């Protein structure tokens, strides 16, 4: 079974600084997808960024980027120029390729942004 591990339950970052959230996963599949979801306090969870395993290039969405290391099964999220609105729970997630596959989530990292 696939597992997703987030070893940092909480992290903090100074406003305007950069922070990296860690995620590792375990799978025997070669084709899959990885995601970072953000859950702000009392608000809906939204997708931040996604990565297809077959793509070597790391995904980027504005201030958010990932470091995808397929051989190491590592998928970290880097947030640059951190803003107060980045404060949230961040969940790493995995999905096997193919139709009708479920998503496996990690336990989450709570990010605090210090003004």
């Amino acid at each position, binding site marked *: 079974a696939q597992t997703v591990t987030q070893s940092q*339950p909480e992290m903090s970052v100074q406003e305007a600084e950069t922070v990296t959230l860690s995620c590792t996963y375990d799978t025997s599949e070669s084709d899959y997808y990885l995601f970072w979801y953000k859950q702000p306090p009392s*608000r*809906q*969870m939204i*997708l931040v960024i996604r990565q297809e395993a077959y793509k070597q290039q790391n995904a980027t969405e504005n201030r958010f980027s990932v470091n995808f290391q397929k051989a190491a099964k590592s998928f970290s999220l880097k947030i640059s120029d951190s803003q107060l609105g980045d404060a949230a729970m961040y969940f790493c997630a995995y*999905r096997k390729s193919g139709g009708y596959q479920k*998503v496996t*989530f*990690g336990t*989450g990292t709570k990010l605090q942004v210090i003004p």
Partner: protein
Amino acid sequence: DVKVTQSSRYLVKRTGEKVFLECVQDMDHENMFWYRQDPGLGLRLIYFSYDVKMKEKGDIPEGYSVSREKKERFSLILESASTNQTSMYLCASRTEASPAKNIQYFGAGTRLSVL
């Protein structure tokens, strides 16, 4: 924008009560999911459905059942609520159609307390 609506933000029920959690999505998505979210445990999949009247057990289906009579609506049922079912419940939907097929859209969540 995709909208996933959960009928209640907060619910308080008594042990032994039958509880219905409702979820409606407005984007004609094939797949719908129910998760529970607990501190330190992340999101755990209870049930999912990939079509009307279809359902699949997730990782923690015990004590729950689901119903999907219409494509837009997915209900989670606690036949006899117990205190260990006190949790945050999240509904999500997803389409199999590209390019959005890897994005899960979440509702705002229902915080259920069983006394």
